[in-house]
């Protein structure tokens, strides 16, 4: 089997953190494959359900970006915290939240993580240290900085991951957060998921500085660019950033260069890029294909790989089934949870 093609999408740099990421063990490859496949199949199913009218409102899919959350999770330990914006289904699954609970929230049922009251953008799990799910672009960055503040206040060694996009990275509160994070040496990793488009506006049209790893330079925050399509590169960069934060050195910025195959959300016809561009990235750089190909090269059989896919599809199908049959929340829930 030919070695996998290096992922080179237009305008992408190979990452300035390390030249070749360390190899994964078979165990790690299998974990990464399964976890990324779970997200991929889940998102494809969510897209389907949206088309059928079972999911309403906003639905932002993570297809193509799976390696980021999966690689980062491999660098964390229990107690570390994750917060992100509204493209959050992948993050939740990677944190270990149940596909059933996420899907039922998407369909607005009482078995959803938020009892159907939040929807796609507003799910949380204290147990899994997932702090949302936020609808306002950039809000999660100061909130995530606050999570890190709490860790520092308590004197523990947990790190917080605050994920946001290339679009969010131009928000003012991001820089306010950067300043305070570095000033107070807060243990937060800022992960900028640069998928090259902020809704319909490309980074070149929206950002004066498109090297997002440098966005912390004004505040002396170190940053790295990472090939976000290679789960090994993500984990390696994650390991470096996590070590930096746990050592009390303050925040770290990781720019993950990635791509989303679908539009910004389900309502986006994505006219701002060509079909060819999407296909090319998919063909050259797909994060799941990379792992598959490595496993096949290491003499794993197609059958074994198919079995992993089948297992994942079963989970997703069960989740979709649950999500479509679980009842909506009781009418009385309209009035609950306004105050504690």
């Amino acid at each position, binding site marked *: 089997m030919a070695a996998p093609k290096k992922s080179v999408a237009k305008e992408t740099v190979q990452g300035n953190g390390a030249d070749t990421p360390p190899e994964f063990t078979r165990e790690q490859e299998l974990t990464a494959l399964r976890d990324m496949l779970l997200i991929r199949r889940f998102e494809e199913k969510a897209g389907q359900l949206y088309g059928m009218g079972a999911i309403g409102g906003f639905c932002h899919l993570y297809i193509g970006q799976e390696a980021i959350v999966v690689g980062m999770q491999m660098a964390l330990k229990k107690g570390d915290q994750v*917060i992100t914006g509204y493209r959050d289904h992948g993050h939740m699954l990677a944190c270990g939240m149940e596909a059933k609970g996420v899907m039922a929230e998407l369909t607005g049922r009482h078995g959803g993580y*938020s009892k159907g009251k939040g929807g796609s953008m*507003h*799910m949380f799990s204290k147990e899994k240290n997932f702090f949302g799910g936020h609808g306002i672009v950039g809000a999660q960055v100061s*909130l995530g900085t*606050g999570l890190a*503040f709490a860790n520092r206040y308590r004197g523990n060694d947990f790190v917080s991951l605050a994920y946001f996009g290339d679009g969010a990275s131009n928000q003012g*509160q991001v820089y306010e957060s950067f300043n305070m994070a570095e000033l107070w040496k807060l243990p937060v990793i800022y992960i900028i998921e640069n998928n090259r488009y902020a809704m319909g506006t490309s980074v070149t049209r929206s950002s004066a500085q498109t090297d997002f790893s440098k966005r912390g330079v004004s505040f002396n925050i170190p940053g790295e660019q990472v090939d976000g399509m290679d789960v090994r590169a993500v984990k390696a960069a994650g390991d470096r950033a996590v070590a930096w934060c746990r050592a009390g050195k303050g925040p770290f910025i990781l720019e993950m260069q990635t791509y989303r195959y679908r539009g910004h959300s389900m309502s986006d016809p994505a006219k701002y890029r060509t079909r060819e561009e999407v296909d090319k990235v998919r063909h050259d750089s797909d994060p799941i294909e990379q792992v598959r190909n490595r496993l096949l090269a290491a003499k794993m059989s197609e059958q074994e790989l198919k079995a992993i896919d089948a297992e994942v599809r079963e989970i997703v199908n069960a989740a979709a089934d649950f999500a479509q049959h679980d009842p909506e929340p009781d009418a009385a829930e309209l009035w609950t949870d306004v105050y504690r």
Partner: protein
Amino acid sequence: MPIQVLMPALSPTMEKGNLSKWLKKEGEAIKSGDVIAEIETDKATMEVEATDEGTLGKILIPEGTADVAVNTPIATILADGESAADAGKASAPAKQEKAAESAPPAAETKSAPTPKDETPAPQPAPAASKAAAAELDPEVPAGTEMVTMTIREALRDAMAEEMRRDPDVFIMGEEVAEYQGAYKVSQGLLQEFGARRVIDTPITEHGFAGIGVGAAMAGLKPIVEFMTFNFAMQAMDQIINSAAKTLYMSGGQMGCSIVFRGPNGAAARVAAQHSQDYSAWYSQIPGLKVVAPFSAADYKGLLKAAIRDPNPVIFLENEMLYGHSGEVPKLDDYVIPIGKARVVRSGGHVTIISWSNGMSYALKAADELAKEGIEAEVIDLRTLRPMDTDTIVASVKKTGRAVAVEEGWQQNGVGAEIAARLMEHAFDYLDAPVARVSGKDVPMPYAANLEKLALPSVAEVVEAAKAVCYR
């Protein structure tokens, strides 16, 4: 003619200060820019610079004199050629002013929060006042000692007590630590609790409000101070979309125990961008609690309650009230429940409803009305959300007439909400439409006369009360 040096006002709301130190002696040469004295206010110690050249003629107010009113002549400067004899002439009228100003009143209150327990100044500071204890709601045990303190001190004590009690409580905001508080509310907290729990932030309201909310989501109990609520507009998204709504959106999982506090509404002469009253904006939002006390005891008891409340609480203070004194019960743990109004003054003819600085006008108006035989019942809402509808309805069922008094703008204001609730719950008892006395529908002007016109006045409240009484 020798030049008189007058006691300067070092802040828009300063009315008096202590002349703590003279740095020049009589007969010493003075150049423009020289520091000649130090003045202490309740907020800071400031230096007085000479603007004129000459020789320091006579010191009119000796070092150590307390409560020197602004504009009191404190010294004379002799120009070249003038002598001490000339200085003597200039100082004569000043002496009389000095005598009048130098007796400090015991209680520096401008208005009576509880008319029955405030005695006219001057008088030795009361050590205990049983009558005062009985005026409080909720009541305190009979015989409880009452301590006179300023609202500033009551706030500080509330925060200090809660920080001692719960290690998860911390305060963050601009100048709260080393500066001892922009309005000296957090004075002494850094010294007692250290920099880990009393945190100076950069001027980044949006960012630090978000950090506060994130810390609260992680289980800490932040007190976020806004230097004024005008600056909190920068942070509005985090207050509303993150703090207020997340418990609901998460189906009850992700709460946020946080207090956003600071001065709200008009101060003095600080003009349009620094004078807005946000009572109406915040009290509209389900998920927030909004508290706006008036008396020192209420400030203390309600801030403690707000800090303990597991929900996000907007705690609206008022700069004009920080220096006001009142009686606060000396109890280990004086906490007042959020959501209960207080009948401050009983009366049968008309109900006047207000909160925060609006109470200043309401209470004075009640005194004026009493002279004409109109007995007003004055209600201090204390909490705007949840609003204590029952108390105001019960009062209006008795009086049949209501006047709402607010410093904020009338349209979509809290007064409108009060009127709507009274109409819904007490329509058959109303003998007149509910009247609203509000701030005028203009941005706050700077000129002193215009600012006075822009704000409500005691006369307007009296007029409205008489109108609803058809007098």
